[in-house]
């Protein structure tokens, strides 16, 4: 294979593709879409984060404005955790519109994360949202198909191919050259998007950055470059193996429909079918059942809590709980919270595992489908994926646990042991300076090493697909026929 010839074919491809006026029209439309997607992406990210930050401050202000009161009242006053959208969310929305962003954190109760975009949208949201990632994953491959479908097939139809081959060019040179040419054209579409994301990242530096933003960005860039290379070689190979340009186009469109629309949708549907999500009631009542078995702190005759009381009394060598050196009701609530939280965590982990099993069908289908691979890689690196959402839930729930245990400890320490139960009134109270001492919730973006672990199947499959694409070019160059 002579590099000189490869270059020639690449240049020739470039020249042929960029001559017709329709190419410029297509490019213009794509750039306009890029601008539109960038503007709406930035606007959405910035306003959403502003809204959430203002409300986080608002919720905090009213928390701190509480006067001296019984700590258990504060545990129920609770606070809100607002999910922050990662900075790369302007590029890839991922699950952003389908995950809740607000959760109320209080003692004893694990509330649901509410107010996702989808709850306030009509059914048309399921048509998808225009983002830069969508342009790269869905629209650009189609454009490449349109530009490249006839590249070899047309040469065969009009007989140019025979002449070229008889003049000493090899199939390898033709296929590599044309693939490179198409890839170069593809850069005309890709680089503007890359630049906008880089510029937006620099301008929006004051926003919450993802963990290791630039490294994520680099992986996204490499991922898309490989993906686009795969698409380019695929186009050329299909064109080389089709009898006519029309057939090549129809095949490529069939592939697009299968890999972009049908397979991903069926993969997720299969996951959902095989690993059914329990109903909310089944989930909650399973926890409730185990709670009752373990001990119900709300039941005055509960054996577990009666035993606990007796042993505490024995240890401190007193006969009444009001003689203990600490507030007993705070102590019981601390134990109760510990038990129920552990139970909830156990059941929640099970639920998350069901979700993960559902998603794994999609995750591992990336070995059959490069389009799924890039989708997974892109949203995981952008931090808008499932793992980031679950991480937010964990952070919020851990904060909730800290909050209620801190309040229980304040109660044990500062509320008189004589106050057996109840939290009403102005006598048994704790100073309000303690409210400020308890730090506000702060949503940390998911650590890079977790994301990279999450995206490993997609990453490996992209690498494999790239190698496969090279192999396919070599294989086709041996098998291809001139007529």
């Amino acid at each position, binding site marked *: 294979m002579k590099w000189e010839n490869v270059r020639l074919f690449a240049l020739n491809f470039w020249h042929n593709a960029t001559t017709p006026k329709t190419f410029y029209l297509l490019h213009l439309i794509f750039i306009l879409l890029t601008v539109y997607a960038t503007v709406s992406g930035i606007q959405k990210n910035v306003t959403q984060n502003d809204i959430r930050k203002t409300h986080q401050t608002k919720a905090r202000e*009213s928390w701190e404005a509480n006067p001296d009161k019984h700590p258990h009242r504060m545990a129920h006053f609770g606070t*809100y955790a607002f999910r922050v959208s990662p900075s790369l969310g302007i590029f890839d929305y991922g699950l952003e519109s389908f995950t809740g962003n607000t959760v109320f954190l209080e003692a004893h109760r694990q509330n649901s994360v509410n107010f996702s975009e989808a709850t306030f949208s009509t059914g048309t949201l399921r048509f998808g949202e225009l983002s830069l990632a969508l342009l790269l994953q869905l629209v650009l491959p189609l454009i490449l198909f349109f530009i490249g479908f006839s590249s070899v097939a047309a040469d065969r139809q009009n007989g140019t191919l025979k002449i070229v081959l008889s003049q000493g060019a090899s199939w390898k040179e033709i296929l590599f050259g044309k693939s490179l040419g198409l890839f170069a054209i593809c850069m005309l579409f890709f680089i503007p998007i890359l630049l906008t994301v880089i510029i937006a990242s620099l301008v929006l530096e004051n926003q919450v950055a993802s963990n290791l933003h630039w490294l994520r960005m680099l992986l996204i860039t490499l991922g898309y470059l490989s993906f686009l290379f795969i698409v380019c070689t695929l186009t050329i190979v299909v064109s080389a193996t089709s009898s006519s340009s*029309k057939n090549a186009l129809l095949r490529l469109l069939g592939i697009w429909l299968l890999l972009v629309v049908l397979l991903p949708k069926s993969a997720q549907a299969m*996951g959902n079918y095989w690993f059914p999500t329990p109903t909310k009631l089944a*989930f909650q009542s399973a926890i409730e059942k185990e709670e009752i078995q373990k001990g119900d702190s709300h039941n005055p005759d509960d054996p577990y809590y009666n035993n606990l009381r007796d042993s505490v009394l024995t240890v401190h060598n007193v006969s009444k709980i009001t003689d203990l050196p600490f507030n007993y009701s705070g102590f019981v609530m601390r134990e109760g919270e510990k038990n129920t939280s552990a139970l909830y965590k156990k059941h929640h982990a099970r639920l998350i595992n069901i979700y993960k099993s559902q998603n794994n069908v999609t995750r591992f289908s990336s070995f059959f489908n490069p389009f799924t691979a890039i989708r997974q890689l892109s949203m995981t690196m952008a931090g808008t994926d499932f793992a980031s959402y679950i991480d937010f839930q964990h952070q919020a729930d851990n904060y909730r646990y800290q909050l209620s245990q801190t309040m229980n400890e304040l109660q044990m320490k500062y509320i008189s042991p004589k106050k057996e139960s109840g939290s009403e009134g102005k006598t048994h109270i704790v100073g309000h300076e303690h409210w400020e001492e308890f730090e506000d919730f702060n949503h940390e973006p998911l650590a890079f090493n977790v994301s990279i672990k999450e995206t490993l199947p997609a990453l490996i499959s992209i690498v494999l697909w790239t190698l496969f694409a090279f192999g396919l070019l070599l294989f086709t160059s041996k098998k291809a026929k001139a007529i």
Partner: protein
Amino acid sequence: MITYKLFLQQCIRSKEVWISLLLITLLGIISLVIGSKHLVRQQEAIAEIKTYQQQHFDRQASLHNEDLGLLLYYTKFAYVNNLNPLAGISIGQGDVNPTVKRISIKTFEAQKFDTDLVNPMNLQSGNLDLSFVIIYLFPLLVIVLTFNALSEETETGTWRLVAIQTKSKLGFLISKLLIRLALLYIVLIFLFCIAKFMLNIPINDSFLSILGLSMLYVIFWFTLSFFVISFKKSSGFNALLLLSIWLILIILLPAGINAYISSKYPVPEALSTAIAQRDGYHTKWDTEKLPTIKKFYSHYPQFKKYGYPTDGFNWLWYYAMQQMGDDDSKNQREALSKKIKLRERTSKQIASVIPNMQLQLAFNLLAGTSMSQHMEYLQGTEGFHEELRLFFYPKIFEKQQADTIDWHRFKPKYYEAKTDINPFKSMIPLLLASGVMILISIPLTRKL
């Protein structure tokens, strides 16, 4: 008749036609399996709540017989959004919105938007239901069947033969298209027959409207294709143009519109309401009891006879505080519902000029899985909540014992979604677009 038979033979001679017809039938059946699975899960959830609710009441009543106020602090009542079997055809928002809500008589706003257990990945990938097959895939089939109806004749050289032998060239083309339309209608009706038996759908207006709208939608794509092929361009050009139209109408435009709506109309009101209802209730623990109770009585003057107990903890004051969570967040709540309506209106207005979005919304409305119907269900839940309050408040304030109440009468309550849309109204844009395209195409085909 003979000509039609020949047309049919010509059409189904090609392998691609068979494969694509089989494929869409298969996908249609898969989509119905998915739809029926969705229905079964919802029905299971409803059955579960029936058995659970009784046990739940029995347990709470035995634990807190003496203390009705505390009992109602824990007790939750189910309000069920009764399932329309058509939801199996168009799942719509039925996956993100809960079908069963369990509410206590405490602050309603704190419970209103609680979500079900959902995997966001499932939501994002969307449902592969029959509505998806009809809206996304049938147009593709129309394109595959028709893009070369005319150009294949010119490209294979048979057109001149036809032109001199047939009485009307337009009639020839239309008959050719009608055969293909009939084939698609057979598949469509076959799928709806399976849907009827698989999902146990009664044959009613809504079901027939969905079928009618689908048939009209297929006609719309046929006229579009007719319009494109009447320009007598090559097969390749027709395919490219028709697929680009498909891409723009079904992927790009809706995606662009969604991005517009979500960035243009964010919903900060939801978060403000959440904070307002919390503060409305919780800050009352720190203020004097009398103003809270007075405020409560100005909402419910009929309870004034229960007096103004301000010593220590009492349930009248407690539920008065809970009531304040709802009453004090009224402004934010109204702003929220206004914003939701605005979003919906905008979305509907834009969708009305894009047939596929329009059709999706119409399907969801007919199947009871639209956003507006869910909001109505939430309003129904609020009404149910109010009923419960009015029933229990006097009993709590009179310190009645739990066993004086017949708990068995509190079965889960069912809500029926209203589907009073006029299907003909949603057909108008489709009909109009089809009509215009036919009117433009006919003069073009005269010159064939």
